């Protein structure tokens, strides 16, 4: 958005003179940058919520400290032009993709602002006029920095919205087609039923059976489409975990070289919609199989076990490449996929089903490699619904 920076500069009254003042600060500030950077990350690491976004340990923190020093240098040096804006927006997007909550950006800029103020009041202690002018330029710069950061978050949420709208549209089309196909399928089915009474020879009957089988198959596809469109209310019943796993695995073709272990702990009481829960297992296992595609051997483990006194968990783990770290916070969003094939509805449906059961879905990469998805479900969804839904992460 080329008009964004000029617009915000005009609003703040940031001009070339501010750029010049900031550039003149650079030689005085440089020596303090490592300390400011140190303090900046110490604050992040001290805060559990912010710390959680740092997944690469010590090494990543050291690298980040160096990039932050560069960030500080380039901020003062300028020029504060379109190229500057684009570089800053790119950095902002990086934080959006790692799933850093937006409010940390506001506080982080605040921490940095205070450190700059402290240093400026020290290095310009002798010249109150220059100090005041420097502070003014500095605050304007940081307001610009924050505005750019928040702008990237806004663009991101708009994209999510568009994706959501696309999905709703797809869902509506799918539901429409599904319903429209039901009637012709019904006519075919009943016509076959009638014909079967007339046709005497085996060959003719064999073909009628084939038509009938395919009609049933079409009906199952329509049901799955309507399921995806979410147009069906869940039907909560007591579900036998072993039976559910058996039935789900019966619908997933497992390629040679991939081993799937299933295990349901004794005593897990599952109340839920049997068809939807089965679909969760099918989608997760299918995902794992696709992740293992280019490997000679792979192992997938499907478990159903108690989680705490009120919930049980369905976990599907594989020893594939795991999720792409950038995508990890967003894998459950519709139309988010790293694969060329598939349109990214599988995990979206998993979360959708979890939420319709007042449960939640979580995706992680395992420390030993591979991906693990956990679907936490209340033992009694109806009671849970009365208390209010859980959130997905």
């Amino acid at each position, binding site marked *: 958005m080329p008009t964004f920076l000029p617009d915000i500069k005009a609003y703040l009254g940031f001009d070339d003179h501010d750029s010049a003042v900031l550039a003149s600060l650079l030689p005085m500030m440089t020596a303090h940058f490592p300390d400011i950077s140190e303090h900046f990350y110490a604050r992040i690491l001290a805060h559990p919520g912010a710390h959680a976004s740092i997944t690469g340990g010590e090494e990543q923190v050291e690298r980040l400290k160096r990039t932050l020093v560069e960030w500080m240098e380039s901020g003062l040096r300028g020029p504060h032009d379109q190229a500057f804006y684009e570089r800053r927006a790119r950095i902002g997007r990086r934080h959006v993709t790692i799933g850093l909550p937006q409010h940390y950006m506001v506080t982080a800029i605040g921490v940095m602002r205070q450190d700059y103020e402290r240093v400026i009041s020290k290095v310009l202690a002798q010249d109150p006029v220059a100090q005041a002018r420097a502070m003014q330029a500095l605050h304007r710069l940081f307001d610009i920095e924050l505005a750019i950061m928040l702008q990237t978050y806004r663009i991101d949420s708009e994209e999510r919205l568009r994706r959501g709208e696309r999905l709703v549209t797809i869902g509506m089309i799918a539901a429409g087609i599904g*319903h429209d196909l*039901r*009637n012709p399928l*019904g006519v075919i*089915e*009943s016509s076959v*039923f*009638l014909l079967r009474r007339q046709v005497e020879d085996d060959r003719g009957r064999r073909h009628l059976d084939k038509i009938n089988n395919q009609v049933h198959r079409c009906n199952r596809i329509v049901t799955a489409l309507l399921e995806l469109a979410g*147009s069906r209310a869940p039907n909560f019943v007591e579900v036998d975990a072993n039976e559910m796993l058996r039935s789900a695995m019966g619908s997933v073709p497992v390629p040679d070289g991939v081993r799937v272990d299933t295990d349901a702990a004794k005593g897990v009481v599952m109340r839920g919609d049997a068809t939807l829960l089965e679909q969760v297992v099918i989608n997760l296992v299918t995902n794992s199989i696709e992740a293992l595609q280019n490997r000679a051997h792979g192992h997938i483990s499907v478990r159903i076990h108690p989680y705490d006194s009120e919930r049980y968990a369905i976990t599907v783990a594989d020893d594939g490449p795991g999720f792409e770290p950038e995508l990890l916070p967003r894998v459950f969003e519709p139309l988010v996929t790293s694969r060329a094939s598939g349109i990214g509805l599988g995990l979206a449906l998993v979360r959708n089903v979890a939420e319709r059961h007042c449960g939640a879905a979580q995706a992680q990469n395992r420390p030993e490699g591979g991906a693990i998805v956990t679907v936490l479900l209340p033992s009694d969804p109806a009671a849970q619904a009365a208390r209010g839904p859980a959130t997905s992460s």
Partner: protein
Amino acid sequence: MTPTSVLIVDDNVELAENLGEVLADEGYPCEIEATGSGAIRRIEQKEYGLIITDLRMHGTDGLAVAAAARRRTPPTPVVMITAFACDPQLEAARAVGVADVFTKPVDTSVLVALVKQRISHGDG
């Protein structure tokens, strides 16, 4: 004397005709009606053994048909069929006394079995 004729109401006439043919083969005389208002007129004039109606139809819907069936003494039993599994109107259907509600797809053999259950065979 229990009436054995069946009224089939569906704006998809081919579907209704097929079902009628199947039931006729089983010994149940059938009448086909493509609109809800037409069905209500018939119900008011004649006693059927069973009414099979689609829920969603243009104009007068299956609920109105079921209500007309209920106004008769004794009420005529109704089987309702809908394409929408969680149709909020299903509740309304139960409220007007519809005991059998089916979601599409409905296997013809299942319907035949149900009709046999609902209409005890005998004189016609």
